[in-house]
Each structure stands twice: as structure tokens, then as C-alpha cells.
């Protein structure tokens, strides 16, 4: 963990988001520190993805402020919004790859839009990014419809990393992957976070990911954050949902396994 007194990279204050008469996020406040991996959990339909989409500006908010790296997105002009958008990368749950572009073109797309660099460097770096996320050379020229689920996630991660962002938003990065691939993916995110110095905001359901890579965990219930802190703190929490989640059957099994055979 880096300096605690630092200004948070993402700062959300009193955020309210709703659809019609239903309020999904009710005066939610959250800080994400520089260089940490924040795991974000909550029941299905509790609004995890809604928060992520609100932070990256895909959903309108009713009240509250969101600041990325100290810049308030509401008062920021078009230029600084574009600037902020090149400082984050988003991995969508289904990958959301551009279906008419090949894997490598997907990665190069944001470079072409945002950077002034030569075609050769673009191709080289895009290939390097794909290699970094563990994609084979032969798969770089494939179209998204020809990729497997795991490969799609990897390409989507490479695309999210294309501009060397400071912040990485991951929406359920390991869902739909087999345990081995999911484990690899966790390790990959950890490595990339360390080498590139990323701040990672990760929405996940995967207990194993939470144990393996997250510095802190935030729990969303009833429209606001009910608990936030490292794993050890989660296990001591008294909130019923947190208790059920982190001391449920699967969590206990996982913990026992981790205790007997430390990875």
C-alpha cells in the first residue's frame, strides 16, 4: 500500500443514481487510493455495475460529485473530459470488443484516436499489450467472434490497457472463466498493477479473486457502502450480508484450504 495521506484517485461523494422511482445508489461515498486494487462486492442487482457505469460517465447521476484524479467531471470541459478518458481503461463484463475489428485492431483503436505515434510503433505496442495479457501471436488477427470467452477477456483487458491508463475499471473480470484461467487472470492483474502502477477498481463475485489480489474490499448493500477495508476486517464485520458473504459455506471452505496449503 502506498502513502495513505495521498489524495484519492477516485473520489465519489453523496452519489445518487436511480431509474424511475427506484433509487439504486443512495448518497454513496467512496474513495479509491492511488495504486491499490479495490474489490467491490454486493448482491446481484445491488448496483455494483451501476456505480462503475456512473463513475465512467455512462449513467446520469441525480446528485453528488465524482472526481477522477482531482478533476470533477461535471465542471470539466470537453478537453479535460477527453483527457480523463485517456487516463482510465474499462473492461466490460462481456468484453464489448468491436466486432468488426480484429483483436489487434481493437487494441490499436484507442491509440489511433488519442495518440500521435507512427503506425509501426502502434502495431508493436499493441502486439506487446496482447502478449502481456497472454494472447498468442496467431490470435491477434482473429475477429472477436472467433475468440473464446477467456481470450475475449484478455483482448478486452489489453484494450483497456492500451493507453497505459492510471486507473483500470474491471467489471467481473473472471466471470465465465474456468478456475485456472481465473487464477491466471488474477495473477495477471496483480502483475500488471505492480509493473504499471495501476489503480484498479474491480467489481467481482469471485471470492478467490478477492482473497488473491485485492488490497481493500468495499461492500455495497442497500444503496451505499456498508463495509470497506482489507479482507481481515471483512471477516470481523457484523453486517448480516457481509457475514453471510465472507463467512458463508464457500468462503469458509476457501479459507480452510488457504490455511492448510498457503499459496
Amino acid at each position, binding site marked *: 500500500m502506498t502513502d495513505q495521506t495521498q489524495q484519492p484517485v477516485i473520489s465519489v461523494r453523496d452519489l445518487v443514481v436511480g431509474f424511475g422511482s427506484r433509487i439504486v445508489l443512495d448518497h454513496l461515498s467512496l474513495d479509491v487510493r492511488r495504486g491499490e486494487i479495490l474489490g467491490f462486492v454486493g448482491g446481484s442487482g445491488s448496483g455494483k455495475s451501476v456505480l462503475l457505469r456512473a463513475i465512467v460517465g455512462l449513467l446520469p447521476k441525480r446528485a453528488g460529485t465524482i472526481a477522477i484524479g482531482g478533476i470533477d467531471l461535471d465542471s470539466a470541459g470537453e478537453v479535460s473530459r477527453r483527457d480523463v478518458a485517456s487516463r482510465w481503461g474499462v473492461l466490460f463484463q462481456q468484453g464489448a470488443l468491436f*466486432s*468488426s475489428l480484429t483483436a489487434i485492431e481493437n487494441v490499436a483503436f484507442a491509440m489511433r484516436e488519442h495518440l500521435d505515434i507512427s503506425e509501426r510503433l502502434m*502495431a*508493436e505496442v499493441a*502486439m506487446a*499489450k496482447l502478449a502481456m495479457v497472454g494472447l498468442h501471436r496467431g490470435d491477434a488477427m482473429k475477429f472477436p467472434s472467433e475468440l473464446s470467452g477467456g481470450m475475449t477477456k484478455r483482448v478486452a483487458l489489453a484494450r483497456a490497457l492500451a493507453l497505459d491508463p492510471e486507473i483500470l475499471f474491471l467489471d467481473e473480470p473472471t466471470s465465465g472463466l474456468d478456475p485456472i484461467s481465473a487464477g491466471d487472470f488474477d495473477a495477471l492483474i496483480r502483475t500488471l498493477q505492480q509493473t504499471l502502477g495501476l489503480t484498479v477498481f474491480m467489481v467481482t463475485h469471485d471470492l478467490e479473486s478477492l482473497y488473491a489480489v485485492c488490497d481493500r474490499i468495499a461492500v455495497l448493500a442497500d444503496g451505499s457502502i456498508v463495509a470497506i477495508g482489507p479482507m481481515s476486517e471483512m471477516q470481523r464485520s457484523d453486517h448480516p450480508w457481509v457475514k453471510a458473504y465472507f463467512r458463508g459455506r464457500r468462503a469458509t471452505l476457501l479459507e480452510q484450504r488457504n490455511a492448510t496449503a498457503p499459496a
Partner: protein
Amino acid sequence: MTTAALLEVVETSGGRQLFAYGAWTALHARQIDVAIDAMDGAATSLPATLDMSGVDAFDTYGAWLVERLSSRWLDEHRPLQVVGLRNNFEGLLGAVHRVRSDSPVAVTSDKSLGSTLAGGVGAIEQALSAAGRDLAGLINMLGAVVQSLGQVVSRPRTFRLTSAVHHLDRVGWQAVPIILLITFLIGCIIAQQGFFHFRKFGADEYVVDMVGILVLREIGVLIVAIMVAGRSGSAYTAELGAMKMREEIDALGTMGLDPVAVLILPRIVALLVALPVLAFLGSLAALYGGGLVAWLYGGMSPEIYIARLKEAISLTHFKVGMIKAPFMALVIGLVACTEGFKVKGSAESLGLKTTASVVQSIFLVIILDGLFAVFFAAIGM
């Protein structure tokens, strides 16, 4: 920032020394790129050092360029030693070094077109074989639909009535206003042009013959079929294509259901019912429009218009138009569903197939109309 401020070269007796300064990031990647490529692989094989202590920002792009330079010089047997890089940047350089690929591929694939005559002949050949495949696909679909229809006839309970009614509402009922408006306007235009030109010969009365025969035999059904192809055929293709993309059609198959029976038959039945009705209504609207223009522009009273119309047209003309309608509906439905099933994974192919569906069905509708004209002439209808 100038190149000199990013990279400096000092030749010493002990070898070449490079000094890097500033931000080695994507922002300055172009300058660094050029500077590194311009650096000659001088004759000396003395070791070189890259001092990066002056670098205050570093990312994958910078790391890649360092890696590119060092690997190029390694090939020329001149190892490059990188020193002074900050601790937190070293991991990145290591990571890039590990994934360095020997021969990167170009992002944009080379699409050089085949040259001159051979290319032209090849293109024609390809187009012909594609047209042949399209026709085969259409006949294949017709077979599947007929087979499915046979099963429904033997067991009527298996027919998806709800689905068929739903589609009938969409392609029939909801299309009525626009069809009425368009055919009404077409009727008006034909009558207006008729009066304008026939008046020169004093043949005003024959405008009614022209409007009546033209609308009932040809224009009514043709305009309606073209409208339906553009309106409903494209919707069918887009729906089925999106289902194909999202593997919904595969899901149906795994549940032991026949996609043709579940998705296609109700759609085609809906079109078969809707198109003749729409053609009938469209013809009425066109005749009405013609009558209105005859009255307001041609000075022919409605009574005379109706009386002339009764004399000019017979049931045969009406039958000729109506007989064609279900065949046109079948062609539109088959083309739309076949193209929809041909959609592959990408959004682009969905667009291509929807376009192909509309273009092909309008083309085939007009061809069919021509064949019917020949046929009816031959049997004297």
C-alpha cells in the same frame, strides 16, 4: 519538447553514451521513435550505455522504444546497457522485454487488389458463384419452410399461432397507415400525369382506364411489395441476425426445437396473409387518390369517374394483381429469413445482410412481376 531534450548522444573513448531526459511516454513517443530509428549503427562495436536517470515519466511506449533500440543493437553485436532507471520503472521494462515479439505484424492488413484482367474475371466469377449460392440458399430455405408447413398441416396444434398473430400485427396492421398514404399519393400522381398529357389528345376519359388497370394489375401490388420488403423484410433479417449473433438460434436447436418452425414459419405465414390484404387496401387508396385528382384537377365528377371505372376494369384485372401478392410475400419472407440466418458474429455483417435482404427481395419481386406479366399475357388474362 524537442528531440534533443529527450535523448542526447555523447561519443566517448569508452563507447557511446546516451542520455535520456523528461517524459518517455506516449505523449513524446513519436519524437523518440524518430530519434531512435535515425540513430546509426555506427561502425564501432564498443559497448553503449543508456543513462535513464533523467527520465521522470515512463510507460509501455517508452519501455518499448528502449527495448527496440537495445534489441536492434544486440543484433549488431553491440549490447546496450540501461542504467539509472528508477526502481518503479524497471518492472515495466522487464515486462516489455519478456513479451518482446521478434517480428510484429502490421495493424492494417494489406488489401492489394488483384490486377487488371485476371482480377476482373475473378471478380465476375466470384459474383456469379455468390449469386448461385444465394439462390441455392433460398431454395434450401423454401424446402425447409415447406417441410415445416407439412408438419404443421399434419399436426395443426404445433403451429405457433400467437407468434404468427404478433407478426401479423407488426407487418400487417401497423403497416396500414403508411401503405395507404403512399399508394394514395401514387394514385394521385398517375392521374395527374394522365390528365396533363392525355388532355392534348382530348383523351381525358381514358385516364380512368389507365389508372384502373395500372393500379389493379401492377402498381398497387408492386408498390406494396416493395414497401413491405423495405419495412418488414429488413426487420426480419435484423431480428434473426441479432438472434444468430447472440446464439439464441443455437439455444433453440439444443432444446430440440426447429428454428424454422419456431421463428420462420410464423413470420412467413404472417407475410402471406398481410401482403394480399395490404395490396387490396393499397389499390383502393390509389383508386381513391386517382378519383380525387380527376375531380379536383381533371374536372371529372366522382359519378362519372366511378361509372368509367366500372366500364374500364373487370374482375380479371383485380385477380391478376391479387394472385401475385402471396408469391411476392413468399419471396420477401424467404429472402429476409435466409439472409438473417447468414449473419456472422460482427455488427458489420448484420448491416451487410440487412442491406442484401432488402436489395435482393426488391430485385426478386420485380423479376417475379415481369414473369407474371409474361405468364398472364400468355394465358390471356
